[in-house]
């Protein structure tokens, strides 16, 4: 049964079961059992809290303590593991050969996140701690004879839902429509109640929320640092991160709150933090990186108050939707040819009345406040400041993406791929925070900045 040399191909010998066939057993619901032998041949048997699917011929086991199993595996690299399907109670035995241990990187981080959820679920926070992800080749999978329960009827077919979602995304004609379509499909086709799309900022250090589904406050504009929580880890490692039970280890907000406190101006008491909209007590979370042409564009995130809401198949489905989303995002982010963008139209002033609203701009971080209420900062803040200045000084209302891209004061990166996303962010923040300022798309690469109240501008320069 064991001791066989590792097969060269990915397929398991005998054309039998693969890890794909038994993936439901690896959800961490029922503990598995692992047997090993010591150098002197003494067997050892132990329960196993976590097994991770790697591919159809590999799994990873969590290395948490330097225990007997660990010592045995290093001396004699063969193990036999028995797993249980949590729905049908079907059991399988896996013959394994240990390959190596990973202590950082995508596999390690995704196991660490899942283990945190499992540990908190079984009351072992602080005890279960991932030291390494032990990678094993699966030599053989054998069903264990025994009684079974009928498999549950699934509420939805994830493959069909994925196909529909990808078809719908391929029909979108602009970036904003793409975000809205993605979230609408998550709700309608996947039954997801809470979701977000976040984009990577120009420096590649933070993600900002551009579209959300299902939260009392949209949270558009809120930020997550790379490496923070499920979303930041998925972005940093460029791998899906999935938690099946609530855990405090991956909660958001502390780092964000701390940095906001530092950034808030003493005396003025003005905070530039937009609260992260996440569920207060999520049971399950899944963050999938949005990648295109091997570059990270952002993160697609879903969550639920229920435990065990997202399984391996959900992860695959959402990764596929995110891949399609990434391809389409990239297409919309390419600046259109100059001919497609008309030059700014003649200045037109909109109807204005009432007391002027005070728009204050801080040069240090391009944060903007309207009547002391925080609106936006960073690139979107700089764009907004240009729009209000041009409007107040020159009476302009029509703008083109191209002129923003070329404006030396905005200092947009060469490619300015995120410009469209920043404009969507700004447009949505204005729609939520301010009823007298509006951005409306007037054509490809063009928009109108509509102002229905007088504005008084106040600038606090850098330093």
């Amino acid at each position, binding site marked *: *049964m064991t001791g066989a040399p590792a097969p060269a191909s990915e397929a398991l010998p005998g054309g039998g079961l693969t890890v794909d066939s038994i993936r439901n057993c690896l959800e961490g619901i029922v503990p598995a059992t692992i*047997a090993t032998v010591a150098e002197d041949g003494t*067997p*050892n*048997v*132990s*329960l196993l809290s976590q097994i991770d699917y790697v591919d159809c011929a590999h799994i990873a086991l969590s290395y948490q303590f330097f225990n007997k199993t660990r010592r045995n595996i290093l001396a004699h690299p063969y193990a036999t593991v*028995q797993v249980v399907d949590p729905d049908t109670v079907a059991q399988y035995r896996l013959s394994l050969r240990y390959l190596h241990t990973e202590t950082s990187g995508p596999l390690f981080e995704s196991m660490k996140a899942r283990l945190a959820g499992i540990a908190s679920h079984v*009351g072992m926070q602080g*005890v279960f701690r991932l030291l390494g992800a032990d990678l094993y080749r699966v030599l053989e999978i054998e069903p264990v004879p025994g009684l079974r329960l009928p498999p549950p009827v699934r509420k939805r077919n994830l493959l069909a839902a994925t196909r529909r979602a990808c078809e719908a995304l391929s029909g979108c004609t602009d970036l904003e429509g793409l975000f809205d379509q993605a979230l609408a499909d998550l709700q309608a086709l996947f039954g997801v109640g809470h979701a977000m799309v976040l984009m990577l900022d120009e420096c590649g250090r933070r993600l900002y929320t551009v579209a959300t589904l299902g939260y009392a406050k949209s949270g558009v504009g809120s930020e997550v640092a790379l490496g923070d929580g499920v979303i930041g880890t998925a972005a940093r490692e460029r791998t899906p991160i999935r938690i099946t039970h609530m855990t405090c280890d991956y909660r958001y907000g502390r780092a964000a709150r701390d940095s906001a406190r530092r950034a808030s101006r003493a005396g003025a008491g003005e905070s530039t933090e937009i609260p992260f909209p996440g569920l207060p007590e999520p049971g399950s979370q899944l963050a999938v990186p949005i990648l295109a042409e091997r570059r990270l564009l952002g993160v697609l995130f879903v969550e639920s108050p229920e435990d065990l809401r997202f399984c391996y198949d959900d992860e695959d489905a959402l990764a596929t939707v995110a891949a399609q989303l990434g391809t389409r995002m990239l297409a919309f982010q390419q600046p259109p040819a100059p001919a497609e963008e008309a030059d700014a139209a003649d200045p037109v002033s909109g109807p204005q009345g009432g007391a002027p609203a005070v728009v204050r701009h801080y040069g240090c971080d391009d944060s903007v406040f309207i009547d002391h209420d925080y609106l936006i900062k960073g690139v979107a803040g700089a764009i907004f400041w240009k729009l209000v200045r041009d409007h107040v000084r020159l009476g302009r209302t029509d703008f083109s993406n191209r002129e923003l891209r070329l404006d030396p004061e905005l200092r947009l990166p060469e490619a300015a791929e995120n410009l469209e996303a920043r404009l969507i962010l700004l447009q949505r923040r204005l729609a939520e925070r301010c009823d007298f300022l509006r951005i409306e798309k007037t054509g490809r690469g063009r928009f109108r900045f509509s102002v229905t109240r007088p504005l008084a501008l106040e600038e606090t320069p850098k330093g």
Partner: protein
Amino acid sequence: MAETLQAHRLTDALAAYIEGGISIVVSSGDAGRGPTVGRAVGCRVSADRRSVTVFLSAGANAALLEAVAATGRFAAAFSEPTTHRSIQLKGSDAAVTPAGEGLQTLLDHHAAGFVRELTRIGYTEAFTRTLLAADPDEVAAVTFTPTGIFDQTPGPRAGDPLDP
């Protein structure tokens, strides 16, 4: 830590714990044939508390029973799901023996205890009874003298030898 070969006499408390209807997983094998693994459906401690018999489905554990007959080496891990308290017993004189009298009562006792345990942490009774389902006519017994007793409760002390 050395795995002592001294035979242990289990305390009353330890005997009651492992007979109480908790998770029992077992292994046999040696360096040549590698490890086998299985799940037991019941346990009995001898009157002198020096030998332990675990019961398991023969049909589901053919390779393991073969390894017991060939090597005599045996490991059994007992774990209480609600507390994670776990111990492992090891022996090198394991033999496949007749199940003996009162098997059905013993299987029922084990199942009742395990159902009680697993129900408290959210499993359905149907799940637990299916997991432990075994035809008494094809249940095999493995009897061994524990010569090593180890703490296996998750944590830094896991693997330490225990006083029986």
